[in-house]
């Protein structure tokens, strides 16, 4: 299979490892299981996995500092598994360099979708940047800096356009408020979450069918946004 990848699964609960492994193997991936953080770093160096699935609640250490350490050595995409109502933990993990998260309990479909998105993104980063995007009824021409919906040009302000590009370039990935604020406004506004929320709502009104039930500019409550093609 052309899509097959080596995936490192770091999780202390054997039963969770079992069904996640099964699901990933059914997709044609090769899975390396690891129950402790201590062994994980060695696996990263030896087996050169293309993706890591990491449970944040491991008994032998802090998953977040593991991610931070990993980021100093490798760009390996990390999908974090975490408990609900731990938004602070999710944000810290994402800011430390995790690429995405799943809230327990999660469905296999969701897991596979996230894994696919991360592997695809990883591959896309290694190829030439695309010059055009399209999602739903919207076409974005990155060269001419033009956005059209149902064939009609949509006027976006410079900030709206920058925000759209920031979200497009990380499509499928959760983007924290801090990340997006830095990408669009620079460091000056890194605490003004309401700016970001207003501009996301502008984009939704201009590009979504129903701004109250968006299909592309998704809210990750308490964490940030995710752009989904």
């Amino acid at each position, binding site marked *: 299979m052309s899509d097959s990848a080596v995936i490192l699964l770091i999780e202390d*609960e054997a039963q969770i490892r079992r069904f996640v492994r099964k699901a990933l193997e059914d997709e044609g991936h090769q899975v390396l299981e690891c129950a402790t953080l201590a062994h994980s770093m060695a696996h990263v160096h030896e087996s050169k996995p293309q993706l890591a699935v990491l449970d944040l609640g491991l008994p032998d250490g802090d998953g977040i500092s593991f991610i931070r350490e990993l980021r100093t050595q490798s760009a390996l995409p990390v999908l974090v598994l975490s408990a609900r*109502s731990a938004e602070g933990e999710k944000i810290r993990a994402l800011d430390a360099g995790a690429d995405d998260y799943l809230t327990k309990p999660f469905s*296999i479909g969701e897991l596979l979708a996230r894994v696919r998105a991360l592997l695809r993104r990883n591959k896309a980063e290694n190829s030439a940047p695309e010059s055009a995007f399209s999602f739903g009824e919207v076409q974005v021409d990155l060269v001419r800096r033009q956005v059209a919906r149902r064939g009609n040009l949509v006027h976006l*302000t410079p900030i709206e356009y920058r925000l759209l590009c920031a979200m497009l370039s990380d499509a499928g990935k959760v983007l924290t408020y801090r990340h997006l604020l830095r990408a669009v406004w620079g460091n000056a506004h890194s605490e003004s979450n309401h700016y970001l929320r207003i501009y996301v709502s502008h984009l939704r009104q201009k590009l979504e069918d129903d701004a109250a*039930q968006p299909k592309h500019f998704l809210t990750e409550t308490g964490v940030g946004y995710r752009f989904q093609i």
Partner: protein
Amino acid sequence: MNPASPTPPPHFAEILNSLGHPRNAIARMAWMVAICGLVTLLAWPLHKVIDPANVAMLYVLAVALVALRAGKIAAIMAAFLSTALLDFFFMFPRFTFTVGDVQHVVTLAVMLVVALIVGNLTIVLQRQTVAAVERERQAHALYQFASQLAGATTLEQVNNATRDFLHQSHNGRSVLLMRGDDKLLPLEPSHHLQSELQSAAAIAALRLQQTRHAQEGNDYWLFLPLHGSTYVRGVLAIDFGDAVPATVCAQQALYEAIAALVAIAAERLHFVEVAQRTQLQMTDERLRSAILAALSHDIRTPLTVLYGMADALALAQLPAAARETVAAMREQALRLNSMVSNLLDMAKLRAGNIRPNMEWQPLEEVIGASIKLLGDALAQHPVKVSLPADMPLLKFDAVLLERVLCNLLENAAKYAPPASSIGIGARVADGFAHISVRDTGPGFPPHKLGKVFDLFERGETESLVPGVGLGLAICRSIVAAHGGEIRAENCGGACVTFTLPLGEPPVIETEESDD
């Protein structure tokens, strides 16, 4: 341990006391006459050898003795009687009061003056001795009282010690009243103040922070405020019965000292209690968070496994019946998860250790997120969102408000008839945003409209629709934490409306257009 209380050395006055103390005036006079007579009898056989001036010395001694034993008046009379006896028996001419020699006039006059002075001095000295002994006795009793209070571990013990001490040492009956808000409550309900006058005096002592006196019938009362470091902790009322008010007033400083001791003991006990309570609360809180964290991890792990396995099975090729079973397993696992989340959230909200992370944000966003989160649960019920175009930003915790909306939507989906739509609306009025979720179901039972937000309350007690009645209670707690209110109505179906305060949203600078 208490240091051994020193026994005071036997005192001269006490030795004399042991000889018996003449009680009334007649006995004292008899004593006086007896002493003077005794001296006369003893001196008579020697009248030929001893000079009358020396016999006078014996009489002065007698007067001193009388003064010591029988008081001032007897001493003065003894002085005169002795002078008369000396003149009558020992001076020429004997057995008459006539004084033959001018020298004897001097002797008699000097003796009288000396006897009066000695008698008086003796009495003053004796009074001072008695007062000193009394003061020492009081100091000792106060010391013992203080050490009793120092060992007290409850207010009841303080009360008992005070009552016994005042009863034994001062013949008073004490009532200890402690402050509760702005009232005074007797420590022992059976020992309360019986009249309006007494209560009024006690309140006056509390408010004015001064000792108050009150006389009612035959009873003389003293009301002493118990001064704590920050406020008056209560009032010590003492009933002295028919004691002379002047005596009580003379000892007021002493009673105030007693009240100070009681106040210190009460305050010490108060702070001990505060410290204990705080420590208990801290331990309690730590335990609770530890239990919550453990519960949420330990319950979620098997739930995740259960859900994941059912989900994995659902992807496999299965016969229709098995597929249905697997779908039901998946659904039940999800429902269990939502119940556990609700329970844990409720526990956290009840414990009061949730601090809302308030941020300005559009309402639309959290509504969209809630609908997305519920996903399949709303598959049969399209949600119609109608918000005013100029809906202002609101300040709320998105995660908590998502919980409110999810619970309300889930509820609506449970009770609404299949394929009917659920409406979410909002309007701005009276400084609040009013957000409502409505369905076209049977609505709430009318008699339970006011109670649906109570913990473990459900519309129909034995309803076929599953749920533990926790969802609406959590909604109320969260809305209350935001400073809003939540209410249920029936308007062609169930309708729940909650409010959020508007406040003043931050200004967003409009971007300059680049065209």
